[in-house]
């Protein structure tokens, strides 16, 4: 139990780093790290399929997208970069204190919570659930991927066309 809690603490620290660090590239790395840690958390909770998805898609694919956005959009000048960094630091420095205070405060709460009766044997295998009960969601996935493909066609082709 203590190890699991520590893992969660590290997860929050990674997310904190992602939101506080100075360059976009490091923030992206922080997010990838948080994502990878989340997938370890999910794995240790028994959600193996979701953990694998999280690792490959979120920590992998999304990081690639974010890194390329960060590298394609360089800041205009060093001075401007430093100025925006300062103004951001002014606003973000209380965050770690807030998180620590919030964590400590919530750790004292032990009010009883009415959770539904736990199924002793679980509710079956995730693949069965996904393929035989949630087909509509699978259809939704295909559909949103189609929408995304159309979006890539529009948003990125527009880019190329206007550069000419």
């Amino acid at each position, binding site marked *: 139990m203590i190890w699991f809690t520590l893992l969660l603490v590290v997860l929050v620290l990674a997310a904190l780093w992602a939101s506080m660090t100075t360059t976009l590239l490091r923030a992206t790395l922080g997010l990838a790290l948080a994502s990878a840690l989340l997938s370890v958390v999910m794995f240790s909770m028994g959600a193996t399929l979701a953990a694998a998805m999280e690792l490959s898609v979120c920590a992998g694919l999304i990081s690639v997208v974010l890194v390329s956005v960060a590298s394609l959009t360089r800041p205009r000048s060093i001075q401007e970069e430093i100025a925006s960094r300062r103004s951001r630091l002014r606003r973000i420095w209380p965050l770690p204190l807030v998180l620590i205070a919030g964590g400590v405060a919530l750790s004292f709460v032990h009010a009883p919570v009415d959770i539904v009766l736990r199924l002793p044997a679980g509710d079956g295998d995730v693949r069965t659930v996904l393929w035989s009960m949630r087909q*509509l969601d699978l259809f939704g996935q295909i559909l949103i991927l*189609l929408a995304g493909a159309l979006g890539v066609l529009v948003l990125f082709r527009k880019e190329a066309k206007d550069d000419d």
Partner: protein
Amino acid sequence: MSDLLLLVPFVAVVLLYLLPKRARAVGLWVAFGILALEAAAAVLDRFATVDVGLLAPLEKLLGFHLATDGLSGLVILCTGLVGMAALLVARRTLESVNERFLFANLVLVAVVGINGMAMVRDLFSLYVFVEVTAVATVILVAAGRGDHVLEGAWKYIFLSVVASVLMLTSLGFFLLSTGGITLDAARTGLAANAPLAWIAMALFLCGLFVKGAMVPFHGWLADAYTAAPAPVSVFMAGIVTKASGIFALLRIAQSTLGGATPGREILLVVGAVTIVVGAFLALTQTNFKRMLAYSSISQMGYIVLALGGDLHLGILAAGLHFFNHAVSKSQLFANAAAVEKQLGTLDIDEMGGLGARMPVTAGTSAVASLSIAGLPPLAGFWSKLLIILALWNAKEYAFAAVAILASLVTLAYFLSLQRKVFFGKPLEKWAGAREASAGLLVPAVALALVTIALGIGFPFALRILLGGGA
């Protein structure tokens, strides 16, 4: 049949991309045909009777577990009508074949999303289809040529993700409190007064308020509508926002809240605040589309307010107002597109006296405005009357008074819009303005006729629209 409403548009998009590039002009008409069939299906058979022969094994294979009732029929009918209007507007306002082709495809994807929302019985699938529609719409906005399309698209998708976070958190609480995420499970949890289930429901409602642009989450809507290209704003204002925010609220009020007090109070307060704030913001606008956008916010407040009234009458009134507003508001956006195409501007203060030069546009927009403002015998009058009756039956007299008073403000801003744009002295500046081309007038006239016909034949129409559902 209900499965086909999802599959046909989806397959059509895939097939359209297999066509050779020269044949792309056909895309718009394919989409138009599908939407016409959809509207016809909604009017004629109400879905249940076609489930024979070939379709039964298909449905078994797919296992989508869809269900249709009067409410789904209503949304599907609106989607068909508004979609057809938007496609006709696109035909005259988007310049290249490729833009029109893309528009048709994205509309079809969004239509699958909306049809899905109309028929699901599960909160997570509802979320999935809301998200599909949002992504397709964002791309539609961002694909435009206007100056602010990216800003509008950014605000829309940003708020959309925030709404998703709220809805997914809510689903977590539903899992904890009821062990399921279907509408039935939610109803059972709420009926048992489980505190976690109420937290979950409150979060889900908040997510839908963001989606439906209820005050105080309304900021994104005016920017997105104003920035969007003309046909996209017809489509968004007519059905997208309504389906993904307001219809989902209708569905939840109908099948989970069951008239329970805490839920009703949330809906009443949010609805009333939205009506008033939206109406007063609309009064101060000088951009044609922006004024219509704030008017939309205010009118969607009416739908939410109705849900807080007497359960059965409220849902009937909300559904009817949903339909009326979808028809009239998409028509007003089509009118705005006609004006913009002639003048090249949407600034109301620069306009004046256009009524003499664009008589059809002026006449149809007067019909839609007066209907939304609730003047008898137009369709909007009946739905507002039913909303007020629903509140009266539930003994919510104060909220009924708000509804009546706010409709005066509605009348005020629409009259000011009409006066500034169409009446008064014809300005020299617009001497060259002509009536819009037939392609843009057809949707406006058709939708105005629907408004008039529904207003006059109201008792009969009510039976067709909501006969089985409410």
